[in-house]
C-alpha cells in the first residue's frame, strides 16, 4: 500500500514549508476549539461536574472524524497508514501523567491548547495557566535525574488498537464510532439528570443537527468498511514497509547524529561480526532463530542490516521486524571503503566540493578516531571596510 499521502512523509515538501503550513492548520485548530467553547475555563470545568459535557462531545467527535477519515483514505490506498507517526506507548508514564494532567486540568480550568485559545479570547487566567505550564516543563527537566527511570518504564513500542486486535483500521474506526455515539447519549442523559436535580436547564442541543452529525459518522464508518471491500489489499495485515537502500554515508550520518534512531545489525556469521563490525552494530545472537530476534526489537527505530557486500533485499527474517527496514548498499565492504578510508582530496576546490570533502573527513575522523586533516587552505574573504558605507540604510 503506497499512497500519495501523507505528503510531507512522502517528500512532497520540506520542513520550512511544513512549518508555514503549521500556522494554517493551527488556525483551523484554534478556531474549532473556540467555536467548541473551549476558550472558557468554566465551560471546560463543567465537564467534570456533569452539567455540560462539551469536552467529551467535541473531543470524541473530533477523534471519530479523523479516525474514520484515515480509515477511508487508508482503505482506498490514498494515504499510507504505515507512514503515519503514531505515538508510542509507555504504560506507566502515560497513566500517571494522564492522571496528573487531568488534575491540573480541573485545577487550572484549561489544558495547554485551550489555554492558548483562552488567552486569545482575552482571559487572563489562560495566560497565567500557560506560564504555569512553562514552569511545569522546566520543573520536569530539573527533576529529570530522579524521573528518567520512570519516564522510560513500561515501554511497549508503537501499539495500536488495530494492530493489537489484528483487524483493519476501518473496522476499529467503526467500533470507535459506535462507542462514541454511546458515550454521547450517556453524556446527554447525565446532563438531563443533573439538570432536573439542580432545577436548571440542560445544555441546549439541537436534536436535528445532532442526529445529522451522528448519521454522518455512521455513513462515514460504513464507507470505511466499504473501502475495504473494494480494495482487498487493505484487508491483509499492514504490509511490511518497503526496504530502503541506504548508502554508507547515510548510515554513518545517522550513527553520528542520532544513534538512537537505528538498530544496526550485522548479518554475517558471528566470527566475522565479532572480529570487525561497523561501530554500533549488533551481531546476530548465536543459538537464537534470527527471525525471533528481529521480532523482539520494538519498531520505533529503523532497522538497518548489512552483509559482507551488497544484499539485494533484506532477508525474510529481517522482514519480521514491524518498523522500517533498510539495507546498507554495498554492505560492510562499502562502509569500509567509503567511511573508514581517508577521503581523497577534491580535485576542484569549489565551495561545494570542499563542503563535501569536509563532511567526509569528519565522518572518517569520527569512525576511525583519526585527526581530521585540515581542509585545503582557502583565501579568506576579507571584509573590505569602505568609507562609502556611511549612511548604511539612509
Amino acid at each position, binding site marked *: 500500500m503506497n499512497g500519495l499521502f501523507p505528503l510531507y512523509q512522502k517528500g512532497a515538501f520540506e520542513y520550512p514549508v511544513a512549518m508555514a503550513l503549521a500556522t494554517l492548520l493551527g488556525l483551523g485548530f484554534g478556531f474549532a476549539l473556540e467555536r467548541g467553547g473551549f476558550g472558557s475555563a468554566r465551560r471546560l470545568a463543567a465537564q467534570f461536574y456533569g452539567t455540560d459535557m462539551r469536552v467529551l462531545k467535541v473531543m470524541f467527535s473530533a477523534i471519530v472524524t479523523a479516525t474514520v477519515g484515515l480509515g477511508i483514505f487508508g482503505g482506498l490506498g490514498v494515504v499510507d497508514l504505515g507512514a503515519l507517526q503514531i505515538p508510542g506507548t509507555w504504560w506507566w508514564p502515560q497513566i500517571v501523567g494522564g492522571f496528573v494532567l487531568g488534575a491540573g486540568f480541573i485545577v487550572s480550568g484549561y489544558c495547554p491548547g485551550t489555554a492558548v485559545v483562552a488567552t486569545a479570547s482575552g482571559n487572563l487566567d489562560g495566560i497565567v495557566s500557560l506560564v504555569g505550564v512553562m514552569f511545569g516543563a522546566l520543573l520536569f527537566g530539573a527533576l529529570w535525574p530522579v524521573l528518567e527511570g520512570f519516564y522510560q518504564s513500561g515501554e511497549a513500542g508503537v501499539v495500536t488498537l488495530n494492530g493489537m486486535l489484528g483487524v483493519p483500521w476501518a473496522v476499529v474506526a467503526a467500533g470507535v464510532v459506535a462507542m462514541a455515539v454511546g458515550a454521547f447519549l450517556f453524556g446527554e442523559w447525565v446532563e438531563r439528570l443533573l439538570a432536573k436535580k439542580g432545577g436548571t436547564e440542560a445544555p441546549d442541543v439541537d436534536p436535528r443537527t445532532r442526529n445529522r452529525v451522528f448519521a454522518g459518522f455512521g455513513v462515514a464508518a460504513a464507507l470505511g468498511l466499504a473501502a475495504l471491500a473494494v480494495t482487498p489489499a487493505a484487508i491483509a495485515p499492514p504490509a511490511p514497509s518497503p526496504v530502503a537502500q541506504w548508502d554508507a554515508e547515510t548510515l554513518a550520518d545517522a550513527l553520528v547524529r542520532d544513534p538512537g534512531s537505528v538498530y544496526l545489525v550485522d548479518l554475517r556469521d558471528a566470527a566475522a561480526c565479532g572480529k570487525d563490525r561497523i561501530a554500533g552494530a549488533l551481531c546476530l545472537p548465536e543459538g537464537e532463530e534470527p527471525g525471533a530476534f528481529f521480532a523482539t526489537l520494538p519498531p520505533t527505530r529503523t532497522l538497518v542490516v548489512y552483509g559482507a557486500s551488497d544484499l539485494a533485499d533484506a532477508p525474510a527474517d529481517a522482514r519480521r521486524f514491524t518498523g522500517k527496514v533498510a539495507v546498507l548498499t554495498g554492505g560492510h565492504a562499502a562502509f569500509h571503503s567509503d567511511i573508514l578510508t581517508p577521503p581523497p582530496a577534491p580535485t576542484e576546490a569549489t565551495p561545494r566540493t570542499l563542503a563535501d570533502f569536509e563532511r567526509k573527513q569528519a565522518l572518517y575522523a569520527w569512525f576511525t578516531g583519526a585527526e581530521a586533516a585540515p581542509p585545503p587552505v582557502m583565501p579568506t574573504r576579507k571584509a573590505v571596510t569602505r568609507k562609502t558605507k*556611511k549612511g548604511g540604510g539612509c
Partner: protein
Amino acid sequence: MNPQLVEITHGRTNPGIDPVLHAWGWEVPVYLFLGGLVAGVMVLLAALELKRRAKATTPAGQAMPFVAIGLISLGMGALFLDLAHKVHVYRFYLSFEATSPMSWGAWILMIVYPVLLLQGLGGLSDGARGWLRAKVGGLGTLLDRVQAFADAKRRPILWTSMAVGAGLGVYTGLLLGTLSARLLWNSAVMGPLFLASGVSTGAALLLCVKLDHEAHHTLVRWDTLAIGVELALLAVLLLGLVTGGSAQQVAADTLLGGRYTPYFWSLVVVGGLAVPLVLNVVEMRRGLRPTLLTPALVLIGGFALRTLVVAAGQYTSFGLMP
C-alpha cells in the same frame, strides 16, 4: 592542480568576483519600520483632516504628529548606530545626488521634521495652545509666529505632509529596491509595497489611541484597503520572482521554500495581513467593538516584514546562485 589556484580563478570566494556587502543587523529593520510607520501616520492624519475638513478632536489625535517626531528620531537613532563613520553624517547635507536614493532619503528626513511640527502645532486645540504657550516662556513670540503661519497655511501644509509622507514610505522600500546585488530586494515593487505596509502600520498605530468614532471608522476602512493593496503587491513581488531568472528564483526560494518561509507566512501573510484583514472586515460589517489586538497584529506583521526582507535579502547574495 593546486586547489588554491583553482580557487582564485574559478571560485566565488574571490572578493573581486562577487561584491562584498556589509551585513545589516537589527538597526536597519527598526529604522525602516519606524520610517514606514511615520510615513503612514503623516499620510493618514493629513488625509483624514482634508477629508473631514475638521481637525483631530481628541487630545491623543492632536498629539500624534509629535509622537511621530519622536518615532522618526528613534528610527534615525537606530540608523545612526549602524553607521561606520558617525562623524561623517553631515556630508549627506553638503550635496544632493538626484540618482541616489540615499541622498533623497537624507533630505526627505530633514523635511519631515518641520512639516510634522507645523502639522502638529496647527492642529492643537486652544487649551493645548495655552498650555504650550505657558511652557515655552521666552520663546513665546516665536511660537506665536510659527503658530500663525501653521494656521494660515493649514491646507498647503497638510498636502505637503501627505506628499512628504508618501515620499518617505516609498523611499524606505526603494532604498532596498535599487540594490541589484541583493536578489530579493531588486524589484520595483519594493517601494509601493513598503508604502502600503507603512500606511497599514501607521493606521494601526492611530487605531491604538483614542480617536473619535468617525475617525476610527475611516481609519479601519483605510487600514483594510492598505492591507489589501499590500497583499496584492506581495503577490506581484513573489510572482515576479518565481517567473524570473535563476537569480530571482533563488530569492523566491527563501520566502517560498527556504530559510525564512515559516516566518514569512506565519508572521507576515497570515498573522500580519490576512487575519487583521478579516478582523477589520468583520468589525466594519457587524459593528463589533474594536479590539487592540488587530492593530497589534498589523504592527508585528509590519515589523516582521521589514526584518525578513532585510534578512532574506542579505541571505540571497550571488554566492547562492547555481
